[in-house]
């Protein structure tokens, strides 16, 4: 083979080199295409979510004076709460509707073409309930004139967000052009205004007839309770299991088997943990349905393998020289672990835990079977008053249940909830990165 050693120019590339370089250039191009496809998908997803969902953070409200007439709200006239409670929200709805009409007449705002029923459709059904609660809490208010502020209904609100237009109103039987004209006049008169919707974060879920009043309050509390409990349950169990497996357990067939099983558990579909939770925690242990405690126990089971794997990796990353040095100066094995290995592994453990919690936060499937995918309108009690046992929902659950509702206003709410969920996940992931950067040590 003489031609292999034949002198060649270093400046001109021969055929094989050119082919090799071309292959490399092609491979890089494939990589760039792959990245662009995934980024493009992500961009489309974020764009649809944000274009649908940003409007959920703005809401149109009205305010007008209402005289709390005694003959309507306290027919017996004795200001006793339980007697007054006999006047239902229907009575309050009638009062509000009448006051609204009277206010329009007093202000000289024309509302021709808008009959009483269409006029009532401006005021969210959630307002009478709030006024009723206010009056029952303080019966002395009866007879006074108060300014009532509340949401306008979903379609009027949609008009100011561009979801309802005059073209859609022409074919929509739920709203008329005359109502939209009146809405414009009410904004000009200062009776209605659009502003940031804080109540989207605080209000509980609302029924299909009042999408405008629905909020994430109960879902955020439920998710927070679950995350607190998951962290409390998963950290000690996960860390203890990892320390034992890494530092104390003998290396034999049994520990190998356990190791393989833990890795397998991490890949089990989450719905399986829901079935387990239903059987063990609700049917056997008789924990209350729909409660954050059961949700947290199920999510703990689900995240435990992930945490154990992350923690073991963090412990393994601590160099053996540190262990040897500690043992060499006479530390016991336990002192070695708790004084030296664990503090050095802590940032890694923390990062793994936060990432595990983040994945648990976005989980819906296991909650489906334990009754948390539900309409829950009452806030759970405080954490020390048994709130962990009260029914609650969760952020991803709220996304799911709003997405399946009939009123188009819920599409915006659902995407808004996704944005909130994404924000939480982003914060948790950033926290994990910051902690790792800050405390991680490299050897």
């Amino acid at each position, binding site marked *: 083979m003489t031609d292999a050693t034949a002198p060649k120019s270093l400046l001109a590339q021969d055929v094989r080199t050119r082919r090799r370089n071309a292959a490399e250039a092609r491979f890089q191009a494939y990589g760039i295409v792959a990245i662009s496809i995934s980024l493009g998908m992500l961009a489309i997803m974020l764009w649809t979510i944000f274009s649908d969902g940003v409007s959920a953070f703005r809401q149109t409200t009205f305010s007008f004076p209402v005289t709390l007439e005694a003959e309507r709200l306290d027919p017996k006239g004795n200001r006793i709460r339980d007697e007054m*409670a006999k006047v239902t929200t229907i009575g309050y709805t009638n009062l509000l509707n009448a006051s609204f009409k009277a206010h329009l007449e007093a202000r000289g705002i024309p509302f021709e073409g808008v009959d009483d029923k269409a006029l009532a459709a401006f005021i969210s059904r959630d307002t009478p309930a709030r006024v009723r609660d206010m009056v029952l809490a303080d019966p002395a208010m009866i007879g006074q004139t108060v300014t009532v502020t509340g949401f306008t209904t979903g379609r009027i609100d949609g008009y100011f967000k561009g979801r309802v237009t005059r073209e859609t109103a022409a*074919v929509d039987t739920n709203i008329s052009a005359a109502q939209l004209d009146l809405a414009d006049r009410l904004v000009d008169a200062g009776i209605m205004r659009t502003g940031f919707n804080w109540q989207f974060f605080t209000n509980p879920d609302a029924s*299909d007839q009042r999408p405008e009043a629905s909020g994430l309050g109960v879902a955020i509390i439920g998710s927070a309770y679950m995350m607190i409990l998951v962290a*409390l349950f998963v950290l*000690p169990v996960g860390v203890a299991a990892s320390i034992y497996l890494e530092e104390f357990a003998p290396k034999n067939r049994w520990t190998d088997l356990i190791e393989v099983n833990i890795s397998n558990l991490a890949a089990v579909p989450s719905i399986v943990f829901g079935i387990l939770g239903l059987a063990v925690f609700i049917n056997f242990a008789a924990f*209350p349905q729909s409660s954050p405690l059961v949700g947290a126990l199920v999510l703990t089971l689900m995240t435990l393998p992930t945490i154990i794997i992350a923690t073991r990796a963090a412990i393994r990353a601590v160099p053996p020289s540190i262990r040897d040095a500690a043992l060499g100066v006479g530390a016991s094995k336990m002192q070695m672990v708790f004084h030296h290995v664990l503090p050095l592994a802590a940032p890694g453990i923390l990062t793994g835990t936060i990432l595990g919690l983040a994945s648990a936060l976005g989980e819906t499937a296991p909650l489906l079977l334990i009754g948390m995918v539900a309409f829950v309108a009452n806030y759970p009690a405080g954490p020390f008053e048994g709130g962990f046992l009260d029914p609650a929902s969760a952020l991803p659950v709220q996304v799911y249940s709003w997405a*399946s509702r009939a009123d188009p206003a819920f599409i915006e709410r659902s995407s808004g909830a996704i944005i909130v969920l994404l924000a939480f996940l982003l914060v948790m992931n950033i926290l994990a990165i910051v902690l790792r950067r800050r405390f991680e040590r490299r050897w």
Partner: protein
Amino acid sequence: MSLIKLSVSALAIAAVSATAAVARDQVQVTGSSTVLPYSTIVAEAFGENFDFPTPVVEGGGSGAGRAKMCEGVGPNTVDIANSSSRITQKDIDTCASNGVADIMEVRFGYDGIVFASDVNGPEFAFTAADLYNAVAAQVNKGGAIVANDYAQWAEFNPALPAQDILVLSPGTKHGTREVYDARVILAGCKETSAYDLFLAASSGADDRAKASDATKACNTLRADGRNVDIDGDYTETLARLDASKNAIGVFGLSFYQNNTDKLRVATMGGIVPSTESIASGEYPVSRPLFFYVKIAHLDVIPGLQEYVEFFVSDDMAGPDGPLAQYGLVADPELAATQAMVAARTPMGPLN
């Protein structure tokens, strides 16, 4: 480690308080996703107007809800199962074997099933026969049963637009499917005399077996892509209809009423579906909606009796109530239901 102590004590506290708190103070409802919106509207109003907590309402399907109700008696089982179809004998037997002896059947109204297309498309005026010809696997063509090869609506009914056939039928898991099969497909099968041909072709031993064969043949839908079963919610059907503008979707009346800006409703036998035409019986495709109450829980769960009475009250389920505004067809015999609820009459055997 203090963290370990903390979490162990948290676990212990949680376990102790859980066993102490088995007495539940809110009503729990589960079942049909068709009934879910009505149930949440009532639950919300109930929470506002009574001094009881708002009931917790779950969806998940009629069958799953009834199965959950039949799991047994006790505070960790649900109180009410919503259902868009009547309870079956199998459910009643399961219930009885698990100690749920007395069930109260409450029919609170009717739900209309409507056919709708894209709002910008042509108008459709259907008969049951048209829909049968569009979606069945085999149809009657000139007195003989042949595999369905109709591609456009106008091919079997010149009054319909010359548009490609695409029907989004409710999936077999849906409660809607039952009434769709019985009131539309089977009715159309009989109208086009395909039923008689199936009956004649059947090799069943007696008349009953033959009838069951024919019904089965009628309800077999074509699988060449012109009929698509939608297993998800109506929102999925709407999204599919948005993607393929020439499709006909099957919706609940209340869902249609909330989306009249996107959907154009089709008439059925010349009748426009509305709460009035369904209440009067003119519009043929409707079904009763029920919920089933565990009588043993009525005195145990606070607010349960009040919730059930409130649900069927004229203020809620009556013709001018919020449920009717949302799309429920009020039950003309509501007064009898109210009396039954007040007397806590358990349901009799199925007929």
